[in-house]
């Protein structure tokens, strides 16, 4: 491979040294080592999976709104095993549920937030020509994609795909059909991909920063990605180990997660026994709680960039934000067992974990306060990315606040495993992270393509999504307060479920409406790709380094080696003619 960069000091310019010999198509766009191409590969793959994962949920919403009624048209197409007579089978419902969760988290949001935005933006924002290990970067995408395809192929297995929830609690997952083995194998590939990526991010951010770019001059987005990379690096290995153990339980007859004396459908299981179902829960949540912050931190990073740019003033409390995000990173490793309060743990353990949970809410409050205070005194431009970033604040606030009753043991007795939980984490991840990611797409699309997304269509996309998404998730809090359990194929079996069934109809129509609300985005995306307004390198009049590179940046990113002169968000500096003083210009 000839496209190596001089990584030693990070100041190498492949561009000048290597001339412009054209790479063949498959090296340039398929097995590319260019961080921008890999970032776009991740982002496009992730967007497709987000749509797919959402579609699974839209199918489930039919059964929830109209239990036992045949689904028109589509019901027939999905076949007799999945939907006999057009009515969803309970096992198919469970498959859709497990795969929705898995796809949205591991194949959608994280790959878009870290693989997509991280890869594309981080090297540009730190003034590097590429990632520290470009070939490792390529390997990481090419471990991810087969993992995704394998995950989807599990639908074709006898007995269908994984159906024990995205959490895959044994013993249920240990005795589930073959699809669960495929789920485990796919997870091993996806986790490996994440681990390779996280090492690459850490080394890149530490080693390849441009001259003058000290840690206190890094854009907040880079800080968020750095903490995220550490979380992935440290939290994923236990889950990878646990996943391999689950594979062993399923195919090699071990009993890591199986206690003695199991009797399934009247038959005693022929296993050695002696294992512990709770061991899986500890290993799983030891990843999956930091994973929650992997889902949210890059989103917060994007929101910070967009807010600073559109309020035309420095971020309020930049250092406080950085300290908070680092503190969250550390704390996220000691809160995992708050997912397990109902397992019968001792009071010492539960008191410890509810205390750490309350502590970790404090930096989140600080971050939110910093963002809102950043609005104060601004000159706010309501561009499409800014609308999404603005809406992130109240939506994340709802998600965060409703975490309180779940993090406190006494109220969790009632709310644990109800729809309240679903409402809570979806507010964090859907109108929270996903809105932030949309803000990022509208914000960096011009950098990636050299063309602007249509602002009017963007605003239509925002308003429709904003209204619809609240119809989807707000009613869930009321269902949860009524005591409705999650993951129920037919909630009307219960009297307390019948009491809130009307809300299921509202939620389902909200979800279908939310799908329609994505049409302006999809149209905008393809239309602007071909015919969007062309832009120069810095269309948003921004201050950070990625806007010093051409739009789109060529291989090697920058035409001249960038040098950093100041803090990242020097907007509206008194006495200057422009209302922005870029990091990369000596005379702001």
């Amino acid at each position, binding site marked *: 491979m000839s496209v190596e960069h001089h990584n030693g000091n990070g100041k190498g310019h492949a561009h000048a040294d290597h001339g412009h010999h054209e790479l063949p198509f498959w090296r340039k766009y398929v097995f590319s080592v260019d961080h921008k191409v890999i970032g776009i590969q991740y982002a496009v793959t992730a967007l497709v999976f987000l749509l797919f994962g959402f579609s699974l949920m839209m199918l489930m919403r039919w059964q929830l709104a109209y239990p036992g009624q045949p689904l028109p048209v589509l019901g027939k197409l999905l076949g007799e095993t999945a939907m006999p007579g057009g009515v969803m089978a309970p096992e198919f419902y469970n498959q859709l549920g497990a795969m929705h969760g898995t796809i949205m988290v591991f194949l959608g949001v994280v790959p878009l937030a870290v693989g997509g935005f991280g890869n594309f933006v981080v090297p540009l924002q730190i003034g590097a020509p590429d990632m520290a290990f470009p070939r490792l970067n390529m390997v990481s995408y090419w471990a991810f994609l087969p993992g995704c395809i394998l995950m989807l192929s599990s639908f074709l297995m006898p007995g269908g795909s994984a159906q024990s929830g995205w959490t895959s609690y044994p013993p249920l997952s240990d005795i589930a059909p073959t699809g669960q083995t495929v789920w485990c194998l796919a997870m091993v590939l996806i986790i490996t991909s994440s681990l390779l990526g996280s090492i690459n991010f850490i080394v890149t951010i530490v080693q390849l920063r441009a001259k003058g770019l000290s840690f206190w001059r890094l854009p907040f987005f880079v800080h968020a990605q750095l903490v995220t990379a550490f979380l992935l690096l440290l939290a994923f290995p236990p889950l990878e180990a646990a996943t391999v153990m689950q594979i062993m339980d399923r195919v090699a007859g071990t009993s890591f997660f199986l206690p003695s004396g199991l009797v399934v459908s009247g038959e005693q299981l022929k296993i050695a026994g002696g294992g512990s179902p709770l061991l899986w829960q500890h290993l799983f949540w030891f990843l999956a709680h930091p994973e929650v912050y992997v889902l949210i931190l890059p989103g917060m990073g994007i929101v910070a960039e967009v807010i600073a740019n559109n309020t035309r003033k420095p971020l309020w409390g930049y250092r406080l934000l950085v300290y908070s995000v680092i503190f969250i990173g550390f704390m996220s490793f000691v809160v995992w067992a708050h997912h397990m309060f109902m397992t*019968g743990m001792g009071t010492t353990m539960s*008191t410890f974990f509810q205390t750490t949970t309350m502590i970790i809410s404090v930096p989140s409050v600080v971050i939110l306060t910093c963002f809102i205070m950043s609005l*104060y005194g601004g000159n706010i431009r*309501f561009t499409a990315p800014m609308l999404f970033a603005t809406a992130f604040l109240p939506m994340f606030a709802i998600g965060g606040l409703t975490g309180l009753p779940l993090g406190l043991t006494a109220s969790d007795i009632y709310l644990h495993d109800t729809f309240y939980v679903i409402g809570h984490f979806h507010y964090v991840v859907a109108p929270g992270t996903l809105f932030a990611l949309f803000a990022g797409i509208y914000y960096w699309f011009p950098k990636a393509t050299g063309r602007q997304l249509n602002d009017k269509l963007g605003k239509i996309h925002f308003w429709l999504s904003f209204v619809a998404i609240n119809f989807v998730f707000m009613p869930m809090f009321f269902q949860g307060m009524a005591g409705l359990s999650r993951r129920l194929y037919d909630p009307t079996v219960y009297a307390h479920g019948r009491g809130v069934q009307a809300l299921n109809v509202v939620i389902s129509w909200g979800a279908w409406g939310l799908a329609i609300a994505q049409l302006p985005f999809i149209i905008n995306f393809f239309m602007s790709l071909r015919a969007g307004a062309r832009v120069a390198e810095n269309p948003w009049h921004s201050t950070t380094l990625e806007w010093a590179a051409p739009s789109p940046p060529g291989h090697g990113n920058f035409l001249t080696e960038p040098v950093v002169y100041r803090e990242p968000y020097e907007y509206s500096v008194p006495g200057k003619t422009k209302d922005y003083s870029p990091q990369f210009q000596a005379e702001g």
Partner: protein
Amino acid sequence: MDEKIYGWWLPPDVSVHGAKIDQLMSVLHWFMLLLFVGWGVFFVYCLVRFRARPGHVAMYTPVKGIATKYIEAFVVVVEIFLLFGLSTPVWLAYKNNVPDAKKALHVRLVAEQFAWNFQYPGKDGKFGKSDPSLISGDNPLGIDPEDPVGKDDVVTVNNLHLPTNRPVIVDVSSKDVIHSFNIPVLRVKQDTIPGQLVSVWFEATQTGHFELACAQLCGLGHYRMRGDVLIDTPEDFAKWQAENAPPPQEEPAAAAPEKK
């Protein structure tokens, strides 16, 4: 069953310990609403007041965050109060003050895909021995027929009969996968985990017919793993126990004085 008691908020609480949980829930939601509305008003004010318009410029110098420090301190103080003033004491009191086993009604629960099997001890107050290898269609709990202690035990499936005003201790476990024993009106939830025996207790204050739900995904029949909770007056409950006790077999008196 009275459907009208179930609406869009907490169903009525018929337990002794539940009032404290409901109180915490109410305090929490008022606190959340206060914070959200407070933040929201300021947020909307900022968006309107500082919108871009001709002649308006942004402030470069950050405002002093005195108010925010107070607000953050307020949030921290309230959270400390919620944690150590409300949640932890309620949880500790509930978990540590397990009622006296002698006075309480003791029930054993073994969950399975997709049913709730309850075992009530007879007059001796002791459960008969059981073994997973003895489990069959007729004997869902695997009770040892050779054990004299178990002769007078009553087994019910999907029906939990309880008296009012008497603590009930349920020893929960599962024979296959993880389920979760959840009675919303009694503010009780406990995962039933195979290989693990956990006790959970509660005391009902009102008679009635309520629902027992499974709260943990346990397979394709998870949604229909529903049980009935039938709370009777102590007299009616005693009557039910008497009616359902197995007919006394040879020498019923011999079983009673037996010691472990």
